[in-house]
């Protein structure tokens, strides 16, 4: 079992929801998908590489016939999978501090959700509904979400300068190079092994 690979933590959670409530949640996610500014906090937190929520209706668990027995459930379920940088505590603390309203809108439809503030009860709830990852792979284990974003900024600026360079005289190139350095300087950094956390 490993929830961690390099700088990424894999989190899985499942929570029960009364079926009539799942439609409200679906509507909220629909709005969240369409109105991009509502995702600003999620984007600005900048330590989530990928995350997804899956509303799983009780009669839609995959059924492949004999010898599998068909599920008979009273609840629909909300599945949550996240790939984030940092420790579990940092993640939940940041979620609670920055995204409390959004999280409440997502999980308030789940049974026994205590709200994302105060954080103690929220953490107890997440710890209860979380299940561990058996195998976790990332193509770039030494890079955090910010490293990836920065790397693409550097790549774009570099490609631009590389394209311009043959058409510039040395003085023009020096000026363009200076602009390039100014543009990328805050996006340069070391991607290496993850720090050891406790």
């Amino acid at each position, binding site marked *: 079992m490993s929830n961690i690979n390099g700088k990424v933590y894999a989190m*899985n959670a499942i929570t029960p929801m009364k079926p009539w409530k799942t439609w409200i949640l679906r509507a909220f996610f629909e709005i969240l998908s369409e109105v991009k500014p509502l995702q600003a906090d999620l*984007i600005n937190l900048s330590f989530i590489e990928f995350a*997804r929520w899956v509303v799983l209706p009780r009669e839609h*668990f995959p059924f492949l016939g004999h010898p*599998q027995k068909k599920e008979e*459930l009273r*609840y629909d379920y909300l599945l949550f999978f996240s790939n984030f940088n940092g420790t579990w505590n940092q993640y939940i603390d940041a979620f609670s501090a920055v995204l409390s309203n959004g999280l409440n809108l997502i999980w308030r439809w789940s049974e026994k959700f205590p709200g994302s503030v105060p954080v103690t009860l929220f953490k107890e709830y997440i710890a209860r509904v979380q299940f561990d990852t058996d195998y976790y*792979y990332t193509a770039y284990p030494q890079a955090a979400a910010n490293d990836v974003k920065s790397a693409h900024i550097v790549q774009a600026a570099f490609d631009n300068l590389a394209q311009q360079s043959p058409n510039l005289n*040395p003085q023009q190139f020096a000026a363009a190079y200076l602009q390039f350095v100014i543009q990328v300087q805050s996006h340069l950094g070391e991607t290496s092994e993850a720090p050891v956390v406790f």
Partner: protein
Amino acid sequence: MANLNGAVYGLTILSPIIDDKTAVPSHDLQIREYLASLPTGEDSPFAIAPGTHLARLVVMDDVIYVGMPACEEHLKSKYLVFESNLDGSLESYLVGLAQSVPQHLDAIWSHCVGYPGSTPIPAFIQYMKACQLETTFFFAAVNDKSVTQTLRALQTQRAVADFIADHQGMKPEQLQIEFARFVELLKSEPAPRPGATTIARTMTTGGHNE
């Protein structure tokens, strides 16, 4: 479609695991044992097959009871959860997996109900789609770059940092020549392998480790 965010596809699969009381060890445990032995770096099956940013495999034993006044209920099957964030279309991704790492797919999914094997490929794809769940909301921090593009960009970022540090104060004529060489050098280098780690450079001055 909520499975897509930009150019990244969010695949979620739930495969019911065979419940055979006579199997020793049980099928879910056999999956777990196999997954525990599977490499996670550049020898990972997901590094060998093309197009995976991040992926996980999880044995989900049951749903979770959150306490009164909620009702306690249980699943009749355990499920293998496969969650992947991938480039391109689902079909081409599944074909890539089936062609590149069929032995791993078969070792894992042969413990699941109705798994037809990684060949014939159309049956494999049909099985995976039968187990697929539609994602309700999919978030991707970077949604317009492929795995190869990201690995290239990380390589460029590292190389550019070195280049800038090594060429401070150089005269414009020489700097332009050196930069042209650097561009050609970077172009000629192969992209880093997915899942690979790079060797940490020794920091001699400054930085957080002093």
